[in-house]
């Protein structure tokens, strides 16, 4: 079985020690998929903390209705920037660009992605896009304040620096497209001999489905954002009601991309969870095909539900009906995944180590996110809940409770493999408590506030919502402490951690057959795959 686990015996050089260049150039000019994955990781975690700090500042502002620390214009910029960074620079590329880049080629037995230079270019688009967005905060007539959705006509009329911010997002979209093209081609062309579609690990399936959504949906937002820029500079009029344009069409185009984008965010995280759960349950995944095909189902159906962001926009009734119907149908494949993950625990041999703890938390929090989605998917309830804190709470359960926790679980799961260092498992488990408790106070509180009628994007609130805001803010502070502890633990491990074994958790997919960290070429020889993945106990396999 472990013919390739040669880390202990043969002398090898890991990808971190290989390469012709030294210092920073070894990183920013590297076309190695593993280095690029780590580049993404470093940028994303830094940007994540910028957005977390902004989030904490917003929670501080909401502590009082009479004392305002920040003027409304700054608060509006806060939630815009928080949204843009979190959505476009963390959760959207997150699991796909970091773990997809690092592990997708290894998991299918390839030496690299199909287009390594394009892969590096994609990272450059990402970093330049991020820098442009950040530059938009400090140039022009003030930071963008239209929310991350940039709804027209407000984004056309406001005096702030929308065009530059929007251009930055356009570049980030380009990065996403190039990554998607790369992953699809890699999965089609680079699989090792015997790695048939049904022998692929489920993380690869999820990343593959995601890549298709990236390729097909992102151009729509690209052209939409270009039109917003053209509207601001030339006044072409296609979105300007003063010239006969229809602002609701902007919303259609925006959500044609941005709803599938939610699935771009969640699918790779689901894929990562699907790796973590069988590894720590020490048994095969339950319902391999159901999980694989439901990824495709989510990607497909998820592209047809964008209208549920627009139930109160005065959309035609036929559209309201169809979009609500599709919204309920897209919940089915998600439900299938949750059931299969739960069933995978049955008759396993479960160890609740930190990655598993976060993976199970993912299932719990994502379930709340999905179920609140059903509640607001019902048309008449949506009329009440739309644009309130309920929505804010819901999408944080999905994006942070889902993608975020999935990202954390994947990071804990693969950290020893990526860096060859082991973190302190006890500290990682301790950091879970403040994150979990704070999370539910913050976003659970938001759900309640929303049902009571607290609209989103208010720099202050009416007095009847003060208690709810106080609880949410305290939860936010508790969670922030947990996040700092979580990442501090990993940073310490990076420099002072024990050396990690090649397979610390007893995983069976290909990446655990390479030494930690993997060598530059991943494999000395390309493996030949004879069997399906996730066979932990061959004697009991059906």
């Amino acid at each position: 079985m472990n013919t390739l686990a040669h880390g202990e015996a043969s002398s090898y050089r890991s990808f971190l020690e290989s390469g012709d260049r030294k210092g920073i150039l070894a990183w920013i000019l590297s076309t190695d998929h593993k280095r690029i994955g780590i580049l993404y990781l470093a940028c994303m975690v830094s940007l994540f903390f910028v957005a977390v700090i902004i989030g904490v500042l917003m929670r501080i502002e909401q502590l009082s209705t009479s004392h305002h620390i920040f003027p409304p214009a700054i608060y509006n910029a806060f939630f815009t920037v928080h949204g843009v960074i979190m959505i476009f620079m963390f959760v959207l590329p997150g699991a796909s660009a970091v773990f997809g880049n690092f592990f997708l080629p290894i998991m299918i037995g390839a030496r690299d992605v199909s287009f390594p230079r394009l892969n590096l270019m994609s990272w450059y688009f990402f970093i330049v896009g991020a820098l442009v967005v950040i530059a938009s905060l400090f140039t022009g007539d003030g930071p963008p304040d239209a929310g991350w959705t940039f709804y027209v006509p407000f984004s056309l009329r406001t005096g702030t620096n929308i065009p530059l911010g929007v251009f930055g997002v356009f570049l980030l979209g380009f990065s996403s497209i190039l990554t998607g093209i790369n992953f699809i081609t890699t999965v089609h062309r680079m699989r090792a001999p015997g790695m048939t579609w049904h022998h692929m690990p489920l993380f690869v399936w999820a990343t593959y489905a995601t890549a298709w959504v990236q390729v097909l949906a992102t151009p729509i937002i690209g052209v939409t954002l270009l039109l917003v820029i053209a509207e601001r500079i030339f006044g072409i009029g296609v979105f300007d009601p003063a010239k006969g344009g229809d602002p609701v069409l902007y919303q259609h185009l925006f959500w044609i991309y941005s709803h599938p984008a939610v699935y771009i965010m969640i699918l790779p995280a689901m894929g990562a969870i699907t790796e973590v759960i069988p590894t720590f349950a020490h048994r095969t995944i339950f319902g391999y095909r159901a999980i694989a095909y439901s990824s495709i189902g989510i990607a497909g159906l998820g592209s047809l539900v964008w209208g549920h962001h627009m139930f109160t926009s005065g959309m035609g009734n036929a559209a309201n009906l169809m979009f609500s119907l599709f919204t309920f149908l897209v919940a089915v494949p998600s439900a299938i995944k949750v059931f299969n993950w739960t069933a995978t625990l049955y008759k396993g041999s479960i160890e609740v180590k930190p990655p598993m703890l976060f993976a199970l938390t993912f299932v719990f929090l994502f379930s709340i996110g999905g179920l609140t989605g059903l509640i607001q998917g019902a048309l008449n309830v949506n009329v009440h809940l739309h644009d309130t804190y309920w929505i804010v709470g819901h999408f944080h359960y999905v994006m942070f409770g889902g993608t975020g926790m999935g990202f954390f679980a994947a990071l804990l799961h693969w950290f020893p493999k990526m860096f060859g260092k082991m973190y302190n498992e006890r500290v990682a488990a301790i950091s879970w408590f403040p994150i979990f408790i704070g999370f539910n106070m913050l976003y659970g509180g938001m759900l309640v506030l929303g049902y009571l009628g607290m609209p989103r994007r208010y720099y202050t609130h009416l007095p009847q919502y003060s208690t709810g805001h106080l609880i949410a803010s305290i939860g936010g502070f508790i969670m922030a402490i947990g996040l700092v502890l979580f990442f501090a633990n990993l940073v310490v491990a990076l420099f002072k951690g024990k050396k990690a074994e090649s397979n610390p958790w007893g995983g069976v997919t290909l990446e655990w057959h390479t030494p930690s960290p993997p060598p530059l070429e991943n494999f000395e020889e390309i493996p030949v795959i004879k069997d399906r993945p996730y066979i932990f106990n061959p004697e009991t396999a059906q």
Partner: protein
Amino acid sequence: MSTAPAHAHPVHKDYQGAKFGMWLFLFTEILLFGGLFLLYSIYRSMYPIDFHNGGKHLNVIIGVANTVILLTSSLTVAVAITAIQKGNKKLTLACLGVTIVFALMFLANKYIEWSAEIRHGIYPNGPELLKMPNGEKIFYGLYYSMTGLHGLHVLAGIIALLITLDFVRRDKITGTDFNKLENVGLYWHLVDVIWIFLLPLLYLAA
């Protein structure tokens, strides 16, 4: 999972993969323009008469001339690929050169057309356009965005074709290794296909 070492493959180019990647890129281009086509079809259904009148002002002759130019340039690129497959380097070079000339002619026509309209005050926020009904403002907004974005693609195509031409000249693209030429060809044909749709939507809408 059972694995066993296989014989190591020598690293070599994956032509099918490169072409597949190019097709994926073309898909994104189709959807990029698809967003504009979506806007066009919706606004046309909202303002049918204004769109009809808007199309009347456009110069059909230039539109059709540009269609013929692009179709022919598509032919020359296709011939260039067949020629390189057959090892006819001279014909390949000639065809690519002709394609670039056609592309420049296309842009020249576009320049003549746009500047005539701009002289007449028909451009976004232009004095004449502001006097027109809303539907025509939208029509011209879309006209400038669609042909403008398409023009940028033609410009990018010219640069790509020039680089390819140089590669063929220096034998970096040969009868056994012509994937780059093929991919540039695919891109150029797509630019042509988009224009095939723009012609009836904008010029023949009247």
